[in-house]
């Protein structure tokens, strides 16, 4: 029996057959009968098929039979088996597990906002060889209802005081300009991020004029096209501004403006899925790690931790999946502090490196949309007043978006995203109405609130690995300018992961250890 089966198999060969019906005389016994192989084109080589006899008692076993007889049941079983073995067919496990993340993944990115997706994109783009790294992005909320990216005002500027921030922003804006080359997916429509190249106008009073001048010098050195304007020039260019109290203004001529962050997010998502990154709709609840003790060169005992598993709890369920991983990237935005605590960052006596927590907190910020029929025209840049209040145009219909960052004492409770309309009346409207007299008559149309992943130490991002939890990388804490630096930060983290050091933009000043050493990299132009 076996020999005959082998002869058949070898003689005909798996791929030597043409498609179509093959009604050959099969000599494998009485099982097949006169039906032959209707539709299937491979002779079953395994011999065990021959031992199944025509037994009515076994009729109920085969799944999916229409009760026509043992024949068809066996045929569909054979077909299913063949399809599951050949490439491209669907593997049907006993129950559906498609919602669970895989059991192993090389990199787990906690957080699927613009920073997390940017890191995933650059990891897949810079990896050698192609398909070498398995990346999993874990995002708790697929609707992005509380994500900072979706609720952002969408501005991008190069007017920062720290040179690294300027470089990050310059690269990101070039990325956005060439977004259809970077994020092109074959057969999908091109992305339109709706960039408004209107520029940023930062106003400074007497006190801040000197700082603004030195900032503009640094910005020009890095290659940003920024010019300084006196109050006289301001009045000529923008007649709707009241220049009382303004000593100096800096105006970005090129490469500054605002765009649609949702489009960038969806474009990144689409491209990253086409590159083979896996997504999981779940929440990280636990890290399983191991510690090892070593000594530093000065003889101190140091405990190094290494994360081995990430427990991902599935949404609206108690089920969780442990994902074995090599690296974890903390891109959780406003919730990065909690993720860092889970990993054991900050568990130790205060004042030591073990006891230094990640100082990233959730801070709530309000954005208001109002309509002002006599307001500034089409050429309005993103105006940031010396008092911190800002506004920009939205669309063609004389609608304006704006807000103001509250002072430390007035920080609202970040527990929910409810909007405080009194804040507009007391803190946002007066300075804007003083600066732009047309805003004395306006009508608020709507408002929303979003989170800043606010770095309470120096309001700049944290990028790079943690010194003690050796395989956790941070890409968070950008305090309101994360969206405009996302592409560049993603590339920097990918370079760090793949090469061990930064190659294009040096973000060593943004390392975690500055919190322990007390070295502030203070960013002055925070909006």
């Amino acid at each position, binding site marked *: 029996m076996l020999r005959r089966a082998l002869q058949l198999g070898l003689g005909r060969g798996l791929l030597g057959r043409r498609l179509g019906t093959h009604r050959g005389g099969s000599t494998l016994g009485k099982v097949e009968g006169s039906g032959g192989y209707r539709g299937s084109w491979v002779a079953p080589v395994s011999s065990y098929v021959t031992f199944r006899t025509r037994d009515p008692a076994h009729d109920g076993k085969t799944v999916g039979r229409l009760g026509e007889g043992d024949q068809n049941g066996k045929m569909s079983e054979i077909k299913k088996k063949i399809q599951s073995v050949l490439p491209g067919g669907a593997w049907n496990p006993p129950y559906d597990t498609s919602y669970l993340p895989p059991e192993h993944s090389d990199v787990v990115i906690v957080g699927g906002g613009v920073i997390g997706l940017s890191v995933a994109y650059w990891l897949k783009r810079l990896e050698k060889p192609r398909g070498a790294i398995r990346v999993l992005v874990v995002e708790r909320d697929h609707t992005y209802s509380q994500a900072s990216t979706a609720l952002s005002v969408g501005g991008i500027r190069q007017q920062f005081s720290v040179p690294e921030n300027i470089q990050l922003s310059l690269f990101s804006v070039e990325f956005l300009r060439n977004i259809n080359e970077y994020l092109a997916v074959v057969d999908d429509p091109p992305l339109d991020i*709706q960039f408004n190249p209107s520029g940023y106008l930062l106003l400074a009073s007497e006190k801040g004029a000197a700082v603004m001048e030195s900032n503009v010098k640094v910005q020009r050195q890095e290659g940003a096209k920024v010019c300084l304007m006196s109050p006289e020039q301001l009045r000529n260019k923008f007649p709707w501004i009241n220049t009382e109290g303004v000593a100096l203004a800096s105006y970005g001529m090129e490469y500054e403006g605002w765009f649609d962050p949702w489009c960038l997010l969806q474009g990144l998502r*689409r491209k990253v899925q086409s590159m083979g990154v896996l997504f999981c709709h779940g929440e990280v609840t636990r890290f399983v790690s191991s510690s090892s003790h070593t000594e530093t060169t000065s003889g101190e005992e140091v405990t190094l931790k290494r994360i081995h598993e990430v427990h991902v709890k599935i949404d609206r369920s108690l089920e969780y999946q442990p994902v074995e991983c090599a690296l974890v990237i903390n891109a959780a935005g406003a919730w990065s502090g909690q993720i860092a605590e889970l990993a054991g960052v900050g568990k130790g006596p205060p004042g030591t490196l073990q006891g230094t927590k990640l100082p990233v907190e959730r801070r709530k910020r309000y954005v208001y949309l109002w309509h002002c029929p006599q307001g500034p025209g089409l*050429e309005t840049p993103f105006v940031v007043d010396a008092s911190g209040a800002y506004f920009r145009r939205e669309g063609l219909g004389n609608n304006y978006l704006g807000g103001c960052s509250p002072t430390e004492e007035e920080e609202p409770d970040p527990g929910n995203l409810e909007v405080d309309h009194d804040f507009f009346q007391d803190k946002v409207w007066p300075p804007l109405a003083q600066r732009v007299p047309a805003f004395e008559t306006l009508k608020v149309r709507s408002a929303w609130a979003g989170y800043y992943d606010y770095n309470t130490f120096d309001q700049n991002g944290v990028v790079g690995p943690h010194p003690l939890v050796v395989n956790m990388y941070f890409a968070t804490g950008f305090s309101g300018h994360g969206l405009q630096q996302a592409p560049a930060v993603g590339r920097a983290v990918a370079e760090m992961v793949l090469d061990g050091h930064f190659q294009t933009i040096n973000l060593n000043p943004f390392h975690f250890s500055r919190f322990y050493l007390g070295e502030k990299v203070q960013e002055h132009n925070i909006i």
Partner: protein
Amino acid sequence: MGLGKTKPLHLVMPVWNRGTRGIRGLSRAVALEGSQKKGRSLLQFLADRFYDVQALREYLLQKQVLKVHQKNRPFTYIKERFGPHAAGAYFILKQGGAVKFQGKEWIRSDAHGHFSLDFLKFQAVPVEAVNASGCAINYQGLDSLLALKELRSLWLQRCPHVDDWCLGRLHPLANSLQELSLAGCPRISERGLASLHHLQNLRRLDISDLHAVSNPGLTRILVEEMLPSCQVLGADWAQGLPSGPDEQSQDKASPIPA
């Protein structure tokens, strides 16, 4: 696309068609109502299932992009040797446009793309007008144009790669530019037009036929307010309005039969 004419391949079993199309498939189904040609859908089908086909199509896409970049490369040697005006003129002529030097006639390349190099002898004669209609000029290529400090009129009609980013770049020409035509450029929207307020010497601006502008009539009004001393040619202000009042007035005009 070379693969469009191959015979249907027999490697694919019909039963595999009904597999998951994935997120990309869903968005594509929505977007491609227009292009239902058989050749395109075969290519999509193949690219969905075979990595090699996908890689090949990505490579072909990249090649198209590189072609445009190649056309917009800077001619640094000519710029160093003959000056920025000659380099800009050479760039435009190479793309298929026309150039007018101050005091001279229009120079244009012929049907085969050849043009005489006499203009290289003009020492420091500035370029006055550039007609780059239909040329594949993009953001990089504008480098050559921005060096022409005395350019008076610039025509960029129907350029397929001129978009909002390019308009944000035109501010160095603010001192001299008096006439700008952007008619028919498919990628320009009202957001790019907002950055034209730097060009305070502009006297004639043509923004007709811009398909990416959402509301042409209103945009024209806003641009006119932004550039008060400029004559703006564009859509009529009534274009965006619904046609209700027109019908009513017609009713009134028709004579009532006695």
